[in-house]
């Protein structure tokens, strides 16, 4: 039955859209405090070296310089976003491990003076041999980047499901291919920044930071500065996109806080674009080999997956990233017998971190590409092979995932129909082709600790609703979605809702924006808080209406008996009555939510459900390959997405469209080029992510399922769609020119070289 909803499911503009359109939305760099100082960071010019000596005396003497700090001055506290993978100091202590590593920081009256002072710091380095490729770095005898980490392999995961050896023996055909995915920079438009202020009287530190996860930043700052967590307050201003890059703590956060504490003045650090490319995070480059065995009809029987991720100089999210790569091989296809092996390997290069899809896009590129190759070689339609192998809702899962709703095969069918699959696949002229690829993504995680959200809903005497949530809106519209959920539950229009979010001094605990879990996790918490607030009012009104509280509904700013909208009172009347009845005001509802997990494990050792629910999606691409220039134009991308029931279809479309264009960048244009550890293209001009000119026609199709766990049936929408645009495009290129590409991105140079090679082979054959 269709639920009767008034606010959920509507195309409400973002609550802060007008502020943004007026240029009045304040990001970290827009905040100014009286007497504010400015900081800059000195970065390593060498890929791997021991720090012999740092002389800061000349910098300290420069007029306008207020302070200099190096790794020797700060507490010896390692940090990292994953507790068991801490391997980083806010400033390097003994060694630098990549070009761009944080070495020292200067604080001065203005950014120019700080910059000038950086040049006056002399660092004596003792060069160490460096290694830039994970396949070299894992060999015996390779330079060791972190003491005690053998073969530079900081994480290794291996698991077997079923009986892989026996299953390969039962296959009709076995295929093995190797793939490579490149480094991609998130490139959010807003540069990373931090502004810190310290009150020496009560010892309280306040940091405004461009962060996706205020509460983790609080913990990391508390640990590294050796301050009580209660003395650290993180406020997230508007954040100009993150895509995973603003998950980690960075030197700017630590150094702004350090100087604010030591100088007693507010201090701001803003990264330059070049620093964002070199010294924040990027999508892990990955070498992958997949061996897959199938029956004649395309049924997958067995798979072996081996991945070597190029982690760069530090771990960041390493264990989570490599685990995600592996776990999500088991969805959206049924792979009854599977071995995966994933390694995270250090190199002397920029650091890998979470990026939209987090380890899964690389794996999907390999698997979805290979599935097309298999389909082609055994003569099964690529859409059919995906539908045939699709997992189904309710079916037992080899790893224990609980799939309550699954729109995957529907998404294949809808995407195929919308791209014109039957008429076009294999039937377009040379240079034109269509391709598709599928994926699934978790709506947050249920199988790890500290992953719960809280919310508070307060009803004011005039009926206005104040929502407190820890959720971190970084531009995706989290506050709006949470506002819609609360409005729906309380039966008020969205205009009545005010959301206060992501201030660790005010709002309830929330893990932040990552893993696409915000709508389900923080949304459920907000919904529970709204129900709790509503319940107080309903119980009060019940007597007056001579009804059971359970039979009352709140709708259209009224409370009435179910089925009799005329028999009721307005919300304002109810609130007034409540107030005059000498009941405590205001009405406060609290909610907290954690995904149901019977046995919290980390999944590294035991099986179990990974996420509260899973989105499913298929991308279908049509491309035009210019045979003269080798340029690929993505003409159209269809994205059919099962995100359950969308809370806000307009925001969901925005997520899908942005994700598709990002995925196109990964397929065709983007690559952080590194030579001997030096990033060669650290600017928007040289990096070249997609512009208006490259945008394809995009058709976003909702595949509606009604998930029992998500608030009002919702699942994730932000990340999953970036998993498979790249394989869909490369599969379409195969359809267009009959060449299988195994390495991303497929640049015009690669296309032309492959076309020339093919011509040569054809000539030879004749």
């Amino acid at each position: 039955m269709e639920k009767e909803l008034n606010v959920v499911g509507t195309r409400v503009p973002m609550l802060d859209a007008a502020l943004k359109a007026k240029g009045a939305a304040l990001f970290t760099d827009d905040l100014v405090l009286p007497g504010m100082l400015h900081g800059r960071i000195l970065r390593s010019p060498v890929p791997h070296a021991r720090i012999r000596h740092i002389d800061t005396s000349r910098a300290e003497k420069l007029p306008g310089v207020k302070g200099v700090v190096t790794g020797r001055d700060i507490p010896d506290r390692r940090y990292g976003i994953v507790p068991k993978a801490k391997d980083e100091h806010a400033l390097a202590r003994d060694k630098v491990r990549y070009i761009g590593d944080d070495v020292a920081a200067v604080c001065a009256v203005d950014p120019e003076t700080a910059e000038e002072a950086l040049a006056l710091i002399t660092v004596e380095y003792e060069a160490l041999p460096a290694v830039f490729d994970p396949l070299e770095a894992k060999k015996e005898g390779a330079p060791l980047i972190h003491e005690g980490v053998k073969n530079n392999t900081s994480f290794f995961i291996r698991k077997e499901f079923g009986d892989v050896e026996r299953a390969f023996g039962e296959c009709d055909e076995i295929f093995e291919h190797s793939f490579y995915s490149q480094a991609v920079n998130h490139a959010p438009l807003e540069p990373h920044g931090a502004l810190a202020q310290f009150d020496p009287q009560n010892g309280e530190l306040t940091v405004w930071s461009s962060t996706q996860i205020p509460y983790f930043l609080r913990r990391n700052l508390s640990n590294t500065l050796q301050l009580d967590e209660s003395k650290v307050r993180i406020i997230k201003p508007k954040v100009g996109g993150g895509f995973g890059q603003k998950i980690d703590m960075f030197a700017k956060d630590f150094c702004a806080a350090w100087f604010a504490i030591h100088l007693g003045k507010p201090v701001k650090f803003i990264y330059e674009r070049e620093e964002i490319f070199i010294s924040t995070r990027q999508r892990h480059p990955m070498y992958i080999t997949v061996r897959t065995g199938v029956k004649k009809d395309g049924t997958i029987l067995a798979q072996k997956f081996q991945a070597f991720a190029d982690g760069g100089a530090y771990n960041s999210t390493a264990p989570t990233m490599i685990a995600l790569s592996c776990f999500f091989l088991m969805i959206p296809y049924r792979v009854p017998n599977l071995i995966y092996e994933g390694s995270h390997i250090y190199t002397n290069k920029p650091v890998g971190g979470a990026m939209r899809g987090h380890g899964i896009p690389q794996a999907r590129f390999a698997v979805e590409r290979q599935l097309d190759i298999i389909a082609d070689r055994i003569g099964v339609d690529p859409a059919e092979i995906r539908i045939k192998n699709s997992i189904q809702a309710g079916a037992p899962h080899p790893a224990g995932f609980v799939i309550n709703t699954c729109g995957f095969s529907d998404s294949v069918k809808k995407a195929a129909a919308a791209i014109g699959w039957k008429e076009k696949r294999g039937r377009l002229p040379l240079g034109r082709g269509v391709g598709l690829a599928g994926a699934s993504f978790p709506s947050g995680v249920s199988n790890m600790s500290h992953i719960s959200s809280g919310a508070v809903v307060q009803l004011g005497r005039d009926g206005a609703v104040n929502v407190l949530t820890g959720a971190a809106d970084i531009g995706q519209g989290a506050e709006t979605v949470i506002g819609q959920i609360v409005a729906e539950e309380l039966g008020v229009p969205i205009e009545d809702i005010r959301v206060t979010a992501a201030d660790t001094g005010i709002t309830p605990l929330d893990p932040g924006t990552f893993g696409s879990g915000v709508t389900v996790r923080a949304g459920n918490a907000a919904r529970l808080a709204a129900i709790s607030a509503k319940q107080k009012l309903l119980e009060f009104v019940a007597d007056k209406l001579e009804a059971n509280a359970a039979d009352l509904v709140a709708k259209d700013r009224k409370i009435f008996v179910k089925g009799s909208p005329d028999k009721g009172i307005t919300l304002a009347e109810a609130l007034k009555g409540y107030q005059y009845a000498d009941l405590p005001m205001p009405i406060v509802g609290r909610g907290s939510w954690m995904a149901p997990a019977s046995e919290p494990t980390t999944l590294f050792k035991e099986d179990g459900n990974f996420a509260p629910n899973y989105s499913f999606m298929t991308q279908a691409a049509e491309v035009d390959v210019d045979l003269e220039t080798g340029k690929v134009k993505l003409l159209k991308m269809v994205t059919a997405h099962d995100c359950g029931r969308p809370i806000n279809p307009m925001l969901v479309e925005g997520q899908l469209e942005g994700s598709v264009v990002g995925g196109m960048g990964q397929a065709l244009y983007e690559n952080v080029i590194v030579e001997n550890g030096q990033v060669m293209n650290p600017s928007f001009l040289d990096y070249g992510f997609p512009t208006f000119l490259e945008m394809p026609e995009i058709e976003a199709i909702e595949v509606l399922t009604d998930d029992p766990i998500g608030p009002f049936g919702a699942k994730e929408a932000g990340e999953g769609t970036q998993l498979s645009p790249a394989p869909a495009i490369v599969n379409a290129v195969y359809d267009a020119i009959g060449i299988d590409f195994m390495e991303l991105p497929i640049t015009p140079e690669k296309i032309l070289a492959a076309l020339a090679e093919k011509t040569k082979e054809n000539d030879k054959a004749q």
Partner: protein
Amino acid sequence: MKKVIELNINGDTHDLLVSSNHTLLEVLREKLGLMGTKRGCDLGACGACTVLINGEAYLSCIMLAVDAVGKEIITIEGLAAGGDLHPLQNAFIDQGALQCGFCTPGMILTAEAILTEDEHPTEDVIKTKMAGNLCRCTGYKKIVEAVMSVNEKIGEEA
């Protein structure tokens, strides 16, 4: 070398002491607090710092403040007349043409310059002229739709 210059910004005149190497972006943000003009790359490559100079779109991060003397400068804060939002602002809001909002002021001002120059540009012209404005969130689709919707209404009776 510092000197006093007079800039006309959003209809107001400001006397400002600036260095000859100060960019217009620095002056707008740091001296006048007009934070709607964003610094995304400081290299003229992202369009977030776009302002209107005599009605045309300029990148304020690669324009010297001294070169803006005698010209009419409009920033995002000066686009809306009185309390009413500009039609482009309304279209961006209602049609979901913004997400994080960091590129939005530059997008809206570039679109305004395009629609001022040419009353009914085609979608291709809009895309070509906006190609210097980067957005990492939206995939551009809803921005094009928002600009086209305003474009279509131009000249219609209110």
